[in-house]
């Protein structure tokens, strides 16, 4: 009897090795890659806002269907100077302000938390990148033996990104927020890899739209490719709010064909360049209201004029996407809505 019990315990222990955990991960979305490589891009020379808007590459990323991290990669050749990588994931996110004592008037309305995703930027010398472009996202870590001969794994990620909630401190920008980094002193003839990790995908459709600019010069604090301003300077993007409007329109309608300019540039589908991106209706107006710190007006207007918002699921054909959240599903303390 005892020996049977022991065998039962052992059997129960080993069966845990073969459970299929696939159900825990969202399935891949047809036509939307979980991992994608854009190939080699050329940093754009920007001298004005229109240059910047024309240089935006838009695309979509989806789930990998497994536990592996998804994301986007691309390469560029060094330019003997600084290069700016600027990415803006769909769409805009904020915490609703409900404090009666310290209200933030611009954030009194709720956000639609189902349409936001997050992309995190890393970049460095391609020689250190351990991923496989288009197949597997990885890191810039290398194994190094220190002076005592002990192995150490060192990250050669050259991107220093700043936290939006705590400017000056190192950190990723966070959900729905633009993130950028300057690769200083890139060397001509040396290949660099940029990795955008899909840290989170929108809950409503598992499709994360993004906009991306690769430009000559630093993102801030210097000049762009002989121009007189940085990318953030061109747009007056000296705050996290204003930075949202460097790239707009990254909320992309599903099911659209690849843009002609993107195809001509040999970018893989689904991608678009500049104003050919099929953005969701009103999404640019929504972003503009965020930049103008006028979300209160926008959200009240949306609530008044849009009848059938679809928050938790992507609206079907002809449906309406709402960018502000469900007012009936928010805390009631304090705020006068």
């Amino acid at each position, binding site marked *: 009897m005892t020996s049977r019990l022991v065998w039962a*315990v052992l059997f129960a222990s080993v069966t845990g090795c073969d459970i299929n955990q696939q159900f825990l991960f969202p399935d891949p979305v047809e036509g939307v890659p979980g991992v994608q490589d854009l190939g080699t891009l050329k940093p754009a020379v920007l001298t004005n806002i229109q240059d910047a808007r024309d240089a935006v590459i838009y695309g979509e990323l989806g789930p990998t269907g497994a536990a592996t991290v998804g994301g986007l990669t691309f390469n560029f050749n060094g330019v003997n100077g600084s290069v700016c990588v600027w990415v803006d994931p769909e769409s805009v996110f904020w915490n609703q302000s409900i404090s009666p004592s310290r209200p933030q008037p611009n954030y009194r309305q709720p956000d639609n938390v189902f349409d936001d995703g997050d992309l995190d930027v890393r970049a460095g010398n391609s020689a250190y990148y351990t991923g496989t472009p288009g197949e597997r996202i990885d890191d810039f870590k290398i194994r190094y033996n220190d002076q005592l001969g002990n192995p150490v794994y060192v990250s050669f990620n050259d991107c220093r990104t700043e936290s939006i909630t*705590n400017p000056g*401190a190192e950190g990723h920008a966070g959900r729905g927020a633009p993130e950028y980094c300057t690769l200083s002193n890139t060397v001509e003839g040396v290949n660099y890899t940029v990795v955008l990790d899909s840290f989170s995908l929108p809950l409503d459709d598992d499709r994360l739209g993004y906009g991306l600019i690769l430009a000559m010069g630093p993102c801030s604090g210097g000049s762009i490719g002989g121009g007189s301003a940085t990318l953030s300077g061109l747009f007056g993007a000296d705050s996290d709010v204003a930075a949202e409007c460097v790239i707009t329109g990254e909320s992309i309608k599903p099911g659209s064909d690849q843009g002609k300019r993107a195809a001509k540039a040999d970018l893989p589908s689904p991608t678009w360049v500049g104003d050919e991106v099929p953005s969701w209706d009103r999404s640019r107006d929504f972003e503009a209201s965020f930049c103008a710190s006028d979300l209160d007006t926008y959200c009240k207007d949306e609530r008044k004029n849009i009848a059938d918002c679809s928050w938790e699921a992507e609206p079907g054909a002809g449906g309406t996407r709402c960018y502000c959240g469900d007012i009936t599903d928010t805390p009631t303390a304090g705020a006068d809505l």
Partner: protein
Amino acid sequence: MRQHLPAPFVLVLALASGCYDEGLNIHDLTGTVIVPKEAATREISRAVLNDDGSPVLDGTGAPTFTTQTVDDPRLIGPVYLGLYPSVTTDAEAYPAPPKLADKYALPYGGTTIGDFRFACLESLQCQIVSGRFVDWQGIVDWYRDTVGKPIKDAAGNEVTNGEYLRSTCYTLLSVTSDAEVRVTATEDRNGDGNIDGLDLDFVKNADGDYEAPFTIREQEFFKGFQLWSFMDSPDPASFKYSTCDAGNGFLENEYNQEFYAGTQFKDILNNPTFYIQRDDWVTSQPFTWEDPEQPGNIVVDLPIAAPGSVQ
């Protein structure tokens, strides 16, 4: 009938007993750091004030100053201890851990003797180190009588009573004991029945230098790694520390106050030479650890004249 333990019970008992040696080479490393009395001595100049608080002027109309030589453990800033594969003079004028690809030094571990504490007023941001003050009144007296920078409360009024500081901390931190604030001495470390200057981190030894024990807990041991340290001294003007990140730490956000308490930068052991400034002190002779049972004793003996050079 013969009685015996069921097999599963025996199995569970064996696993739960903790008798299995995992072979981890992890130890609590202990030792002593000596800070020379010169590192805790400073010439401090203070403006001479009239009874109404205005400066006493000399014949030319300029304020007059008095200078006193102060030897006090409150001048000992946080002492950072790092375990490195090597320490060299390749990159700096003083011994320091080498950086990989000119980026970061790679420590195996480390600790600090004293860390930045929140003393509950913005005027004390990045100035208070644990294990340096005996009591609350000592903080008030130090800044008023020795440093010549009286502590100001949130309204800009001078704080003259240590109890005010204590009650402010209890209120802001929602605590009920000094031990929870960890700004003043609360343990009778030497067991003499009193809580006094002998219970601080650094205590004067027979040579007149300051000595503190340390423990680096649960450290993976690598034979031959070197213990190296440096002391961050307070800035002569602001009395703040260069290793303190004023934009981080505890966020005080209540009523009319909104500021961070300040905390250590997170990469100090990875990038120590970036933070070492004038008047800081470093260890010239790192300790090479061959046996985890052996105590690691070092002296922070080399004064820094300016970043990158020694005095």
